[in-house]
């Protein structure tokens, strides 16, 4: 297990994209969530990125994908050299990821409020196909929950008892109007299992992802300090 070394390599990978030599990388709100998912939770293999029994990870919050690309590079889905030319002409790596272009990336995202619906459909589809092994993970931002399409998805997923579906909400309090009772409450009232954890605490994240939630989809609200 080279986990610690790989995690320590992430700032250098992010620096290849941002040119930021300081510690701005640590402010990436999704960095630790993505790391824990790819390092300890998702059953995905860069040598077989299209394995039909792989877990799915859908990045719905498509903006600011530096941490995503860095984790994909650390885990062997991308050649780290490709990070240097990101967002340039000829690069496969845009300011929003494109699922058609980037290996290991399930969907293209950028416009908010799309990923959770596609994830619900994928969870239903895998169940209809008789594939009970894969989990479908989707990552959204707390402000992204403003989009009404997410509320359609939250209701449908709960009503259909999609326990293979896991939504991570990276909550850095970026929504302007907020949610009474907190983000997790939005999912709870619809019947989701929920967990609220420190989004920098790898063990707490791992524990949340591995807690059983039979018959219900799971929402993990990862609280992260806003801004750098």
């Amino acid at each position: 297990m080279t986990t610690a070394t790989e995690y320590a390599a992430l700032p250098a990978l992010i620096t290849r994209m941002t040119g930021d030599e300081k510690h701005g990388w640590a402010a990436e709100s999704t960095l630790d969530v993505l790391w824990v998912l790819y390092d300890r939770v998702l059953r995905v293999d860069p040598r077989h990125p299209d394995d039909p029994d792989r877990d799915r990870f859908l990045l719905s919050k498509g903006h600011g994908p530096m941490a995503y690309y860095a984790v994909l590079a650390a885990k062997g889905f991308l050649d780290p050299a490709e990070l240097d030319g990101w967002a340039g002409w000829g690069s496969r790596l845009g300011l929003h990821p494109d699922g058609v272009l980037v290996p290991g990336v399930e969907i293209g995202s950028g416009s908010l409020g799309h990923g959770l619906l596609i994830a619900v459909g994928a969870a239903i589809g895998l169940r209809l196909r008789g594939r009970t092994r894969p989990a479908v993970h989707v990552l959204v931002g707390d402000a992204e929950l403003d989009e009404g399409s997410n509320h359609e998805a939250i209701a449908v997923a709960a009503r259909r008892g999609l326990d293979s579906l896991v939504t991570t909400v990276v909550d850095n309090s970026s929504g302007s109007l907020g949610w009474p009772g907190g983000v997790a409450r939005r999912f709870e009232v619809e019947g989701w299992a929920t967990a609220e954890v420190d989004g920098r605490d790898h063990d707490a994240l791992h524990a949340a992802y591995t807690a059983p939630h039979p018959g219900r989809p799971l929402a993990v609200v990862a609280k992260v300090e806003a801004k750098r």
Partner: protein
Amino acid sequence: MSATTMREVFARVLRTGLADDPRIAAVIAEISRDVLPDHERVVNVGIREQAMVGVGAGLALTGLRPVIHSYAPFLVERPYEQLKLDLGHQDLGAVLVGIGGSYDDPGLGRTHQSPADVALIDTLPGWTVHVPGHPDEVEPLLTAALARDDRTYLRLSLRTNAAPLPVVEGFTEVRRGGAGVVIAVGPVLDTVLAAVAELDVTVLYATTVRPFDSAGLRRAVAHARPDVLLVEPYLEGASAHRVAAALADEPHRLRSLGVRRDEELRAYGTTDDHDSAHELDLVGVREAARRLFGRR
């Protein structure tokens, strides 16, 4: 008029598809739940049209062939960005089946009308668009679409020609003449044929408008004056740019008939009333044809 509606044919063919092909699944948002089978691969998401399309995309992501069905305005207009991103941008396939057409039920008013559906779909690359003109034409179009993996829009309507024509990929030459070419899309064929009965023109019939049969139009124009009357049962001129592209190297005239786009027709009444208002009735099409083909 046929005793069976296009929607009933759709339900029957889908039922067979669900039974025969484990890849096929359907997503609906309450509309038509009464005519579709109670089947695990028929997913009703409630009145949530964004969810309907997004969930359909997710089904496609797992290798299923989703059929996404609703009233045209709720299928194409409300979740337009889902069509663009969840299907198109992800390069996923689906069969959209719309009902209601431009104004199948005029009493319901503007909220249930979608004359812009084909024009909207046409802003997105890679879609096949079928506009059957008779219930019997629905089965071959739908069966073929279910067997493909592309993005298809099947536009169903209560409007219908008296008799079906054999379904082919491109245009069907219904009659030939030298004074010009009329393209009649789907259910406007009978009106067009009656309107041009006294004129020496070629009539091309289309149940598929995307891809557009440019070669078929060029062949027809080779035998006639390069004057084209385009008659579509939806937004006026929706295919005009395709005609222009097909005849780019040919001096030609083009007149487009369809649902007027210069103002909202705020009226109820019957479909015939609306045809008249849009000059899509016998009088309107005949007058347009005479003006275009009668001179020179």
